[in-house]
Protein backbone atom coordinates (compact mmCIF):
# COMPACT_ATOMS: atom_id res chain seq x y z
CA UNK A 1 0.00 0.00 0.00
CA UNK A 2 1.19 3.46 -0.86
CA UNK A 3 2.62 5.53 1.93
CA UNK A 4 1.24 9.05 1.93
CA UNK A 5 3.18 10.20 4.98
CA UNK A 6 5.23 13.34 4.61
CA UNK A 7 7.96 14.55 6.89
CA UNK A 8 8.39 18.30 6.53
CA UNK A 9 9.71 20.89 8.94
CA UNK A 10 10.65 18.04 11.26
CA UNK A 11 7.05 17.04 11.60
CA UNK A 12 5.15 13.98 10.42
CA UNK A 13 2.05 14.66 8.39
CA UNK A 14 -0.37 11.77 7.78
CA UNK A 15 -0.51 12.89 4.20
CA UNK A 16 0.22 16.07 2.25
CA UNK A 17 -3.40 17.26 2.18
CA UNK A 18 -4.13 20.40 4.18
CA UNK A 19 -7.24 22.54 3.87
CA UNK A 20 -6.57 26.10 2.70
CA UNK A 21 -7.12 29.16 4.80
CA UNK A 22 -10.54 30.74 4.52
CA UNK A 23 -12.19 27.75 2.94
CA UNK A 24 -12.54 25.49 5.96
CA UNK A 25 -13.33 27.93 8.78
CA UNK A 26 -11.69 26.48 11.88
CA UNK A 27 -12.71 22.99 10.87
CA UNK A 28 -15.72 22.86 13.17
CA UNK A 29 -18.38 22.91 10.46
CA UNK A 30 -16.82 20.03 8.54
CA UNK A 31 -16.73 17.74 11.57
CA UNK A 32 -20.37 16.92 10.93
CA UNK A 33 -19.65 16.07 7.30
CA UNK A 34 -16.72 13.68 7.53
CA UNK A 35 -13.92 12.53 9.77
CA UNK A 36 -11.48 15.41 9.41
CA UNK A 37 -8.79 13.60 11.36
CA UNK A 38 -7.88 11.96 8.03
CA UNK A 39 -6.44 15.31 6.92
CA UNK A 40 -2.75 16.14 6.97
CA UNK A 41 -3.65 19.48 8.49
CA UNK A 42 -5.99 22.43 8.68
CA UNK A 43 -5.11 26.07 7.99
CA UNK A 44 -7.23 28.44 10.03
CA UNK A 45 -9.23 31.28 8.55
CA UNK A 46 -6.93 34.30 8.15
CA UNK A 47 -6.48 35.96 11.54
CA UNK A 48 -5.80 39.59 12.37
CA UNK A 49 -4.83 41.09 15.64
CA UNK A 50 -8.17 42.85 16.02
CA UNK A 51 -11.47 41.14 15.16
CA UNK A 52 -12.68 42.10 11.67
CA UNK A 53 -16.18 42.41 10.27
CA UNK A 54 -15.06 41.81 6.72
CA UNK A 55 -16.30 43.46 3.55
CA UNK A 56 -19.73 44.80 2.73
CA UNK A 57 -21.72 43.95 -0.36
CA UNK A 58 -21.35 40.91 -2.53
CA UNK A 59 -18.66 38.59 -1.22
CA UNK A 60 -18.84 35.73 -3.72
CA UNK A 61 -19.13 35.46 -7.48
CA UNK A 62 -18.91 32.40 -9.67
CA UNK A 63 -16.73 32.54 -12.79
CA UNK A 64 -16.04 29.85 -15.43
CA UNK A 65 -14.63 26.98 -13.34
CA UNK A 66 -13.57 29.49 -10.72
CA UNK A 67 -14.92 31.85 -8.13
CA UNK A 68 -14.04 35.26 -6.81
CA UNK A 69 -14.25 36.21 -3.16
CA UNK A 70 -14.03 39.40 -1.24
CA UNK A 71 -14.57 38.24 2.32
CA UNK A 72 -12.20 40.87 3.65
CA UNK A 73 -10.65 38.76 6.41
CA UNK A 74 -13.73 38.56 8.61
CA UNK A 75 -12.37 36.85 11.72
CA UNK A 76 -12.68 36.87 15.49
CA UNK A 77 -9.15 38.16 16.08
CA UNK A 78 -6.06 36.31 17.31
CA UNK A 79 -7.05 36.30 20.97
CA UNK A 80 -10.46 34.83 20.47
CA UNK A 81 -8.94 32.31 18.08
CA UNK A 82 -6.56 31.22 20.83
CA UNK A 83 -9.17 31.09 23.55
CA UNK A 84 -12.14 29.68 21.64
CA UNK A 85 -11.17 28.05 18.35
CA UNK A 86 -7.75 26.56 18.91
CA UNK A 87 -8.73 24.31 21.84
CA UNK A 88 -11.41 22.74 19.63
CA UNK A 89 -9.01 22.43 16.69
CA UNK A 90 -6.38 20.68 18.77
CA UNK A 91 -8.83 17.84 19.31
CA UNK A 92 -9.09 17.01 15.62
CA UNK A 93 -5.89 14.96 15.65
CA UNK A 94 -4.32 16.71 12.69
CA UNK A 95 -1.73 19.47 12.24
CA UNK A 96 -2.97 22.98 12.99
CA UNK A 97 -1.67 25.86 10.92
CA UNK A 98 -2.58 29.37 12.03
CA UNK A 99 -2.90 31.74 9.09
CA UNK A 100 -1.97 35.26 10.10
CA UNK A 101 -2.88 38.33 8.07
CA UNK A 102 -2.09 41.87 9.02
CA UNK A 103 -2.10 45.51 8.14
CA UNK A 104 1.23 46.71 9.50
CA UNK A 105 4.45 45.01 10.56
CA UNK A 106 3.51 45.79 14.16
CA UNK A 107 0.21 43.95 13.75
CA UNK A 108 2.04 40.91 12.42
CA UNK A 109 4.54 40.96 15.27
CA UNK A 110 1.86 41.28 17.90
CA UNK A 111 -0.01 38.37 16.35
CA UNK A 112 3.08 36.22 16.17
CA UNK A 113 3.95 36.85 19.82
CA UNK A 114 0.50 35.75 20.88
CA UNK A 115 0.58 32.65 18.70
CA UNK A 116 4.07 31.71 19.91
CA UNK A 117 2.60 30.78 23.25
CA UNK A 118 0.07 28.36 21.80
CA UNK A 119 0.48 24.85 20.51
CA UNK A 120 -0.17 25.56 16.85
CA UNK A 121 2.11 23.48 14.61
CA UNK A 122 2.92 26.04 11.93
CA UNK A 123 2.45 29.72 11.47
CA UNK A 124 1.41 30.62 7.94
CA UNK A 125 2.16 34.26 7.25
CA UNK A 126 -0.25 35.64 4.68
CA UNK A 127 1.50 38.53 2.99
CA UNK A 128 -0.87 38.37 0.09
CA UNK A 129 -4.48 39.03 0.95
CA UNK A 130 -5.73 41.37 -1.77
CA UNK A 131 -8.95 42.31 -0.05
CA UNK A 132 -7.95 44.61 2.75
CA UNK A 133 -7.59 48.09 1.42
CA UNK A 134 -4.76 49.27 3.62
CA UNK A 135 -1.71 47.06 3.90
CA UNK A 136 -1.98 43.37 3.06
CA UNK A 137 -1.43 43.75 -0.66
CA UNK A 138 1.79 45.75 -0.56
CA UNK A 139 3.81 43.14 1.33
CA UNK A 140 3.16 40.48 -1.26
CA UNK A 141 4.01 42.42 -4.41
CA UNK A 142 7.56 43.67 -4.05
CA UNK A 143 10.29 41.37 -2.76
CA UNK A 144 12.05 44.14 -0.81
CA UNK A 145 8.95 44.85 1.22
CA UNK A 146 8.28 41.18 1.84
CA UNK A 147 11.85 40.85 3.06
CA UNK A 148 11.26 43.42 5.78
CA UNK A 149 8.18 41.81 7.22
CA UNK A 150 9.49 38.24 7.04
CA UNK A 151 12.78 39.22 8.65
CA UNK A 152 11.03 40.96 11.52
CA UNK A 153 8.57 38.14 12.00
CA UNK A 154 11.36 35.59 11.92
CA UNK A 155 13.10 37.36 14.79
CA UNK A 156 10.17 36.91 17.14
CA UNK A 157 8.53 33.76 15.77
CA UNK A 158 9.21 30.54 17.67
CA UNK A 159 7.05 28.38 15.40
CA UNK A 160 7.94 26.96 12.00
CA UNK A 161 7.27 29.86 9.66
CA UNK A 162 5.55 29.27 6.32
CA UNK A 163 5.17 32.37 4.15
CA UNK A 164 2.17 32.41 1.82
CA UNK A 165 2.82 34.18 -1.47
CA UNK A 166 0.51 36.09 -3.73
CA UNK A 167 0.44 35.23 -7.45
CA UNK A 168 0.21 38.97 -7.99
CA UNK A 169 3.84 39.30 -6.89
CA UNK A 170 6.00 41.04 -9.47
CA UNK A 171 8.37 38.09 -9.68
CA UNK A 172 7.29 34.96 -7.91
CA UNK A 173 10.59 33.11 -7.73
CA UNK A 174 12.50 36.19 -6.66
CA UNK A 175 9.85 36.71 -3.99
CA UNK A 176 10.27 33.14 -2.76
CA UNK A 177 14.03 33.35 -2.68
CA UNK A 178 13.82 36.63 -0.79
CA UNK A 179 11.49 35.12 1.80
CA UNK A 180 13.83 32.17 2.18
CA UNK A 181 16.72 34.56 2.79
CA UNK A 182 14.64 36.47 5.31
CA UNK A 183 14.21 33.28 7.30
CA UNK A 184 11.08 31.53 6.08
CA UNK A 185 11.05 27.80 6.88
CA UNK A 186 8.61 27.03 4.07
CA UNK A 187 6.71 28.75 1.28
CA UNK A 188 3.07 28.26 0.39
CA UNK A 189 1.47 29.49 -2.83
CA UNK A 190 -0.69 30.63 -4.50
CA UNK A 191 -3.17 32.88 -2.84
CA UNK A 192 -5.94 34.25 -5.07
CA UNK A 193 -5.33 36.08 -8.34
CA UNK A 194 -6.64 39.62 -8.53
CA UNK A 195 -9.73 39.61 -10.72
CA UNK A 196 -12.82 41.66 -11.48
CA UNK A 197 -16.44 41.27 -12.51
CA UNK A 198 -18.92 43.89 -13.67
CA UNK A 199 -22.65 43.80 -13.07
CA UNK A 200 -23.64 45.06 -16.49
CA UNK A 201 -27.26 45.72 -15.48
CA UNK A 202 -26.36 47.80 -12.45
CA UNK A 203 -23.38 49.25 -14.36
CA UNK A 204 -21.17 48.76 -11.33
CA UNK A 205 -18.38 46.45 -10.28
CA UNK A 206 -19.81 43.38 -8.57
CA UNK A 207 -17.55 43.88 -5.55
CA UNK A 208 -17.48 47.00 -3.39
CA UNK A 209 -13.68 46.93 -3.50
CA UNK A 210 -13.87 46.62 -7.31
CA UNK A 211 -11.32 43.80 -7.40
CA UNK A 212 -11.55 40.41 -5.70
CA UNK A 213 -9.60 37.18 -5.43
CA UNK A 214 -9.94 34.48 -8.08
CA UNK A 215 -9.54 30.83 -7.09
CA UNK A 216 -10.63 27.37 -8.19
CA UNK A 217 -9.81 25.01 -11.09
CA UNK A 218 -9.54 27.94 -13.52
CA UNK A 219 -6.29 29.08 -11.87
CA UNK A 220 -4.65 25.67 -11.58
CA UNK A 221 -2.33 25.98 -14.62
CA UNK A 222 -0.98 29.28 -13.31
CA UNK A 223 -0.62 27.95 -9.77
CA UNK A 224 1.22 24.86 -10.96
CA UNK A 225 3.62 26.94 -13.04
CA UNK A 226 4.39 29.22 -10.09
CA UNK A 227 4.87 26.31 -7.71
CA UNK A 228 7.25 24.75 -10.23
CA UNK A 229 9.21 27.99 -10.57
CA UNK A 230 9.45 28.41 -6.82
CA UNK A 231 10.46 24.80 -6.18
CA UNK A 232 13.33 25.24 -8.61
CA UNK A 233 14.38 28.46 -6.89
CA UNK A 234 14.34 27.65 -3.17
CA UNK A 235 15.62 24.83 -1.02
CA UNK A 236 12.97 25.01 1.69
CA UNK A 237 9.74 22.98 1.43
CA UNK A 238 6.93 24.33 -0.72
CA UNK A 239 3.22 23.92 -0.12
CA UNK A 240 1.28 23.95 -3.41
CA UNK A 241 -2.12 25.66 -3.58
CA UNK A 242 -4.46 26.71 -6.34
CA UNK A 243 -7.37 25.01 -8.04
CA UNK A 244 -6.50 21.53 -6.82
CA UNK A 245 -9.61 19.36 -7.08
CA UNK A 246 -8.51 15.79 -7.74
CA UNK A 247 -5.85 13.35 -6.67
CA UNK A 248 -4.29 13.74 -10.10
CA UNK A 249 -3.99 17.48 -9.59
CA UNK A 250 -2.13 16.75 -6.36
CA UNK A 251 0.28 14.44 -8.17
CA UNK A 252 1.00 17.19 -10.71
CA UNK A 253 1.97 19.58 -7.90
CA UNK A 254 4.08 16.98 -6.16
CA UNK A 255 5.87 16.13 -9.40
CA UNK A 256 6.47 19.88 -9.75
CA UNK A 257 8.18 19.75 -6.37
CA UNK A 258 5.58 20.50 -3.71
CA UNK A 259 5.94 18.83 -0.32
CA UNK A 260 2.53 19.77 1.00
CA UNK A 261 -0.75 20.67 -0.69
CA UNK A 262 -3.67 22.86 0.27
CA UNK A 263 -7.23 22.34 -0.92
CA UNK A 264 -9.34 25.49 -1.03
CA UNK A 265 -12.27 26.12 -3.35
CA UNK A 266 -12.69 22.40 -3.98
CA UNK A 267 -14.08 22.08 -0.44
CA UNK A 268 -17.10 24.02 -1.67
CA UNK A 269 -17.50 21.92 -4.79
CA UNK A 270 -17.96 18.82 -2.62
CA UNK A 271 -17.59 19.21 1.14
CA UNK A 272 -15.85 15.87 1.68
CA UNK A 273 -13.65 16.17 -1.41
CA UNK A 274 -10.43 15.84 0.61
CA UNK A 275 -11.45 12.28 1.36
CA UNK A 276 -11.84 11.56 -2.36
CA UNK A 277 -8.55 13.26 -3.11
CA UNK A 278 -6.64 11.18 -0.56
CA UNK A 279 -8.19 8.01 -1.96
CA UNK A 280 -7.33 9.02 -5.51
CA UNK A 281 -3.71 9.64 -4.58
CA UNK A 282 -3.44 6.22 -2.99
CA UNK A 283 -5.06 4.62 -6.00
CA UNK A 284 -2.72 6.37 -8.42
CA UNK A 285 0.36 5.42 -6.41
CA UNK A 286 -0.72 1.81 -6.16
CA UNK A 287 -1.42 1.62 -9.87
CA UNK A 288 1.88 3.23 -10.80
CA UNK A 289 3.86 1.29 -8.26
CA UNK A 290 4.86 4.32 -6.24
CA UNK A 291 5.52 3.45 -2.61
CA UNK A 292 6.45 6.84 -1.27
CA UNK A 293 5.75 10.35 -2.52
CA UNK A 294 9.47 11.10 -2.32
CA UNK A 295 9.93 8.91 -5.40
CA UNK A 296 8.10 11.40 -7.57
CA UNK A 297 8.56 14.70 -5.77
CA UNK A 298 10.12 17.28 -8.05
CA UNK A 299 10.77 14.93 -10.94
CA UNK A 300 9.53 17.34 -13.62
Amino acid at each position, binding site marked *: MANLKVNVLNMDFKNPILTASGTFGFGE*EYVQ*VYDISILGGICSKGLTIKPKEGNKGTRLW*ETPMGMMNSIGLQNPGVEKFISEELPKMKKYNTKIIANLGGGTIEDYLEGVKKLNKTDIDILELNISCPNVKSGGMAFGIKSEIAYEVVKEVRKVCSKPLMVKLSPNAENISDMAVTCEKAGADAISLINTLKGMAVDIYKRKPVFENTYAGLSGPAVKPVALRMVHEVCKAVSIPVCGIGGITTGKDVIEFIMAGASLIQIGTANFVKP*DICLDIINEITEFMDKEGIKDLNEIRGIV
Partner: protein
Amino acid sequence: MKCSFGRIIENDKIINNIYKLEVEFDGKINPGQFFMLKTLDNSFLLPRPISVYDVGENKVVFLYRIEGHGTEMISKTLSNHEIQLFGPLGNGFNLQEIKGKTAVIGGGIGIAPLFYLIKKLKKENTDSYLGFKETPYCLEEFERYSNKVVVATEDGSVGDKGYITNSINVKDYDTIITCGPSIMMEKVIQMCRENDVKVFASLESRMACGIGACLGCAMKTKKGNQRVCKEGPVFNGEELMIY
Protein backbone atom coordinates in the same frame (compact mmCIF):
# COMPACT_ATOMS: atom_id res chain seq x y z
CA MET B 1 -25.37 16.22 7.55
CA LYS B 2 -23.72 14.30 4.74
CA CYS B 3 -22.90 14.93 1.13
CA SER B 4 -24.35 12.18 -1.02
CA PHE B 5 -25.49 11.34 -4.49
CA GLY B 6 -29.26 11.03 -4.61
CA ARG B 7 -31.19 9.25 -7.30
CA ILE B 8 -33.67 11.54 -9.03
CA ILE B 9 -37.20 10.20 -8.87
CA GLU B 10 -38.68 12.99 -10.92
CA ASN B 11 -37.55 16.33 -12.35
CA ASP B 12 -40.46 17.84 -14.19
CA LYS B 13 -41.50 21.18 -15.47
CA ILE B 14 -44.51 22.55 -13.59
CA ILE B 15 -45.02 25.61 -15.72
CA ASN B 16 -42.76 27.98 -17.71
CA ASN B 17 -39.40 27.89 -15.97
CA ILE B 18 -40.58 26.30 -12.72
CA TYR B 19 -39.52 22.73 -12.00
CA LYS B 20 -40.25 20.18 -9.31
CA LEU B 21 -37.43 17.84 -8.38
CA GLU B 22 -37.85 14.73 -6.25
CA VAL B 23 -34.74 13.02 -4.98
CA GLU B 24 -34.29 9.92 -2.85
CA PHE B 25 -33.27 10.97 0.62
CA ASP B 26 -33.50 9.48 4.03
CA GLY B 27 -33.04 11.67 7.08
CA LYS B 28 -34.63 14.28 9.28
CA ILE B 29 -35.42 17.63 7.70
CA ASN B 30 -36.89 20.76 9.28
CA PRO B 31 -39.14 23.02 7.26
CA GLY B 32 -37.12 26.00 6.02
CA GLN B 33 -33.88 24.08 5.64
CA PHE B 34 -32.12 23.82 2.30
CA PHE B 35 -29.73 21.63 0.33
CA MET B 36 -26.77 22.46 -1.86
CA LEU B 37 -27.40 20.79 -5.24
CA LYS B 38 -24.95 20.11 -8.01
CA THR B 39 -25.07 18.13 -11.22
CA LEU B 40 -22.34 15.54 -11.79
CA ASP B 41 -21.21 16.89 -15.17
CA ASN B 42 -18.81 19.69 -14.18
CA SER B 43 -20.94 22.18 -16.06
CA PHE B 44 -20.76 24.60 -13.13
CA LEU B 45 -18.56 24.85 -10.08
CA LEU B 46 -20.42 25.77 -6.92
CA PRO B 47 -23.45 23.83 -5.70
CA ARG B 48 -26.71 25.81 -5.72
CA PRO B 49 -28.74 26.36 -2.55
CA ILE B 50 -32.34 25.18 -2.93
CA SER B 51 -34.96 25.07 -0.16
CA VAL B 52 -36.88 22.01 0.83
CA TYR B 53 -40.34 22.27 -0.67
CA ASP B 54 -41.69 19.01 0.70
CA VAL B 55 -40.58 15.81 2.35
CA GLY B 56 -41.99 12.38 1.57
CA GLU B 57 -41.13 8.86 2.50
CA ASN B 58 -37.48 8.42 1.56
CA LYS B 59 -37.53 11.49 -0.58
CA VAL B 60 -37.09 15.22 -0.53
CA VAL B 61 -38.86 17.53 -2.95
CA PHE B 62 -37.59 20.81 -4.35
CA LEU B 63 -39.38 23.52 -6.27
CA TYR B 64 -37.04 25.68 -8.29
CA ARG B 65 -36.95 28.28 -10.98
CA ILE B 66 -34.46 28.35 -13.82
CA GLU B 67 -32.54 31.49 -13.05
CA GLY B 68 -29.24 31.01 -14.82
CA HIS B 69 -26.75 28.42 -15.90
CA GLY B 70 -26.74 26.29 -12.73
CA THR B 71 -30.47 25.85 -12.36
CA GLU B 72 -30.73 25.25 -16.10
CA MET B 73 -28.23 22.41 -15.86
CA ILE B 74 -30.10 20.98 -12.87
CA SER B 75 -33.32 21.08 -14.90
CA LYS B 76 -31.67 18.93 -17.56
CA THR B 77 -30.72 16.14 -15.21
CA LEU B 78 -33.02 13.21 -15.77
CA SER B 79 -34.93 10.77 -13.64
CA ASN B 80 -32.90 7.82 -12.46
CA HIS B 81 -29.71 9.83 -12.78
CA GLU B 82 -27.91 11.03 -9.70
CA ILE B 83 -27.48 14.50 -8.34
CA GLN B 84 -25.07 15.71 -5.66
CA LEU B 85 -27.07 16.50 -2.56
CA PHE B 86 -25.63 18.17 0.53
CA GLY B 87 -27.88 18.89 3.47
CA PRO B 88 -30.19 19.54 5.12
CA LEU B 89 -28.55 22.85 5.95
CA GLY B 90 -29.48 25.98 7.86
CA ASN B 91 -31.68 26.55 10.86
CA GLY B 92 -35.11 26.19 9.31
CA PHE B 93 -38.26 27.50 10.93
CA ASN B 94 -38.63 27.21 14.66
CA LEU B 95 -42.09 25.70 14.96
CA GLN B 96 -42.25 26.57 18.69
CA GLU B 97 -42.10 30.25 17.87
CA ILE B 98 -44.89 30.15 15.33
CA LYS B 99 -47.99 30.69 17.41
CA GLY B 100 -51.59 31.74 17.02
CA LYS B 101 -53.11 32.87 13.76
CA THR B 102 -50.42 32.58 11.15
CA ALA B 103 -49.97 33.86 7.62
CA VAL B 104 -47.31 32.77 5.18
CA ILE B 105 -46.58 35.32 2.48
CA GLY B 106 -44.71 34.01 -0.52
CA GLY B 107 -43.67 35.78 -3.68
CA GLY B 108 -42.92 33.78 -6.79
CA ILE B 109 -40.46 30.98 -6.23
CA GLY B 110 -40.29 32.25 -2.63
CA ILE B 111 -43.28 30.04 -1.93
CA ALA B 112 -40.91 27.04 -1.98
CA PRO B 113 -39.83 26.90 1.69
CA LEU B 114 -43.36 27.71 2.88
CA PHE B 115 -45.11 24.57 1.73
CA TYR B 116 -43.41 22.04 3.98
CA LEU B 117 -43.83 24.59 6.78
CA ILE B 118 -47.61 24.87 6.46
CA LYS B 119 -47.86 21.09 6.34
CA LYS B 120 -46.42 21.17 9.85
CA LEU B 121 -48.76 23.92 11.12
CA LYS B 122 -52.39 23.67 12.16
CA LYS B 123 -54.42 24.04 9.00
CA GLU B 124 -57.22 26.06 10.61
CA ASN B 125 -54.72 28.61 11.94
CA THR B 126 -52.82 29.10 8.72
CA ASP B 127 -53.57 31.39 5.78
CA SER B 128 -51.42 31.46 2.67
CA TYR B 129 -50.86 34.65 0.67
CA LEU B 130 -49.16 33.89 -2.61
CA GLY B 131 -48.07 36.52 -5.09
CA PHE B 132 -46.97 35.94 -8.67
CA LYS B 133 -45.94 38.01 -11.63
CA GLU B 134 -48.11 36.07 -14.05
CA THR B 135 -49.42 32.51 -13.89
CA PRO B 136 -49.55 31.05 -10.35
CA TYR B 137 -48.47 27.51 -9.53
CA CYS B 138 -48.82 24.99 -6.70
CA LEU B 139 -52.06 26.62 -5.52
CA GLU B 140 -53.86 23.33 -5.03
CA GLU B 141 -51.12 22.00 -2.84
CA PHE B 142 -51.20 25.10 -0.67
CA GLU B 143 -55.01 24.92 -0.47
CA ARG B 144 -54.83 21.45 0.96
CA TYR B 145 -52.95 22.72 4.02
CA SER B 146 -54.28 26.26 4.39
CA ASN B 147 -57.34 27.70 6.06
CA LYS B 148 -57.52 29.99 3.06
CA VAL B 149 -55.32 30.87 0.11
CA VAL B 150 -55.20 34.41 -1.19
CA VAL B 151 -53.58 34.92 -4.56
CA ALA B 152 -52.40 38.06 -6.30
CA THR B 153 -50.85 38.46 -9.72
CA GLU B 154 -49.19 41.55 -11.07
CA ASP B 155 -51.13 41.31 -14.28
CA GLY B 156 -54.40 40.52 -12.50
CA SER B 157 -54.90 37.31 -14.48
CA VAL B 158 -55.62 35.32 -11.31
CA GLY B 159 -56.74 36.61 -7.90
CA ASP B 160 -56.13 40.18 -6.81
CA LYS B 161 -54.35 42.47 -9.21
CA GLY B 162 -51.08 43.89 -7.92
CA TYR B 163 -48.69 42.95 -5.17
CA ILE B 164 -49.68 40.34 -2.60
CA THR B 165 -48.68 42.73 0.18
CA ASN B 166 -51.75 44.80 -0.72
CA SER B 167 -53.99 41.81 -0.11
CA ILE B 168 -53.10 41.23 3.52
CA ASN B 169 -53.90 42.99 6.74
CA VAL B 170 -51.07 41.91 8.99
CA LYS B 171 -52.99 42.95 12.10
CA ASP B 172 -55.20 39.91 11.58
CA TYR B 173 -52.28 37.62 12.50
CA ASP B 174 -50.11 36.71 15.44
CA THR B 175 -47.22 35.44 13.34
CA ILE B 176 -46.17 36.10 9.79
CA ILE B 177 -43.63 34.17 7.74
CA THR B 178 -42.38 35.48 4.46
CA CYS B 179 -40.14 34.50 1.59
CA GLY B 180 -39.78 36.14 -1.78
CA PRO B 181 -38.16 39.09 -3.51
CA SER B 182 -36.35 41.48 -1.14
CA ILE B 183 -38.68 44.30 -1.90
CA MET B 184 -41.68 42.19 -0.91
CA MET B 185 -40.09 40.93 2.31
CA GLU B 186 -39.08 44.48 3.13
CA LYS B 187 -42.65 45.64 2.82
CA VAL B 188 -43.95 42.74 4.93
CA ILE B 189 -41.43 43.35 7.69
CA GLN B 190 -42.19 47.04 7.69
CA MET B 191 -45.93 46.40 8.01
CA CYS B 192 -45.33 43.90 10.79
CA ARG B 193 -43.08 46.29 12.69
CA GLU B 194 -45.65 49.05 12.45
CA ASN B 195 -48.30 46.73 13.80
CA ASP B 196 -46.20 44.82 16.31
CA VAL B 197 -46.70 41.47 14.60
CA LYS B 198 -44.06 38.78 14.96
CA VAL B 199 -42.42 38.10 11.60
CA PHE B 200 -39.87 35.63 10.25
CA ALA B 201 -38.21 35.88 6.88
CA SER B 202 -36.30 33.28 4.89
CA LEU B 203 -33.43 35.07 3.18
CA GLU B 204 -31.12 34.43 0.28
CA SER B 205 -27.46 35.17 -0.19
CA ARG B 206 -24.80 33.94 -2.56
CA MET B 207 -23.23 30.85 -1.05
CA ALA B 208 -20.13 28.77 -1.51
CA CYS B 209 -19.82 26.29 1.37
CA GLY B 210 -23.39 26.29 2.67
CA ILE B 211 -22.33 25.29 6.20
CA GLY B 212 -20.77 28.34 7.76
CA ALA B 213 -17.11 27.96 6.83
CA CYS B 214 -16.45 30.49 4.07
CA LEU B 215 -18.29 33.55 5.44
CA GLY B 216 -19.36 34.36 1.90
CA CYS B 217 -23.03 34.60 2.75
CA ALA B 218 -22.60 36.86 5.77
CA MET B 219 -25.19 39.56 6.31
CA LYS B 220 -25.16 42.42 8.73
CA THR B 221 -27.89 42.18 11.35
CA LYS B 222 -28.52 43.91 14.64
CA LYS B 223 -26.61 41.05 16.27
CA GLY B 224 -23.61 41.63 13.97
CA ASN B 225 -22.61 39.51 11.02
CA GLN B 226 -24.78 36.44 10.61
CA ARG B 227 -24.26 33.62 8.14
CA VAL B 228 -27.38 33.12 6.06
CA CYS B 229 -26.45 29.46 5.59
CA LYS B 230 -25.89 28.72 9.27
CA GLU B 231 -27.67 31.20 11.57
CA GLY B 232 -30.27 31.52 8.76
CA PRO B 233 -31.76 31.28 6.26
CA VAL B 234 -34.69 32.03 8.59
CA PHE B 235 -34.31 35.22 10.59
CA ASN B 236 -36.51 36.97 13.07
CA GLY B 237 -37.67 40.20 11.42
CA GLU B 238 -36.53 42.12 14.47
CA GLU B 239 -32.89 41.28 13.91
CA LEU B 240 -32.79 42.37 10.32
CA MET B 241 -31.16 45.67 9.51
CA ILE B 242 -31.63 45.90 5.83
CA TYR B 243 -35.24 46.85 6.29
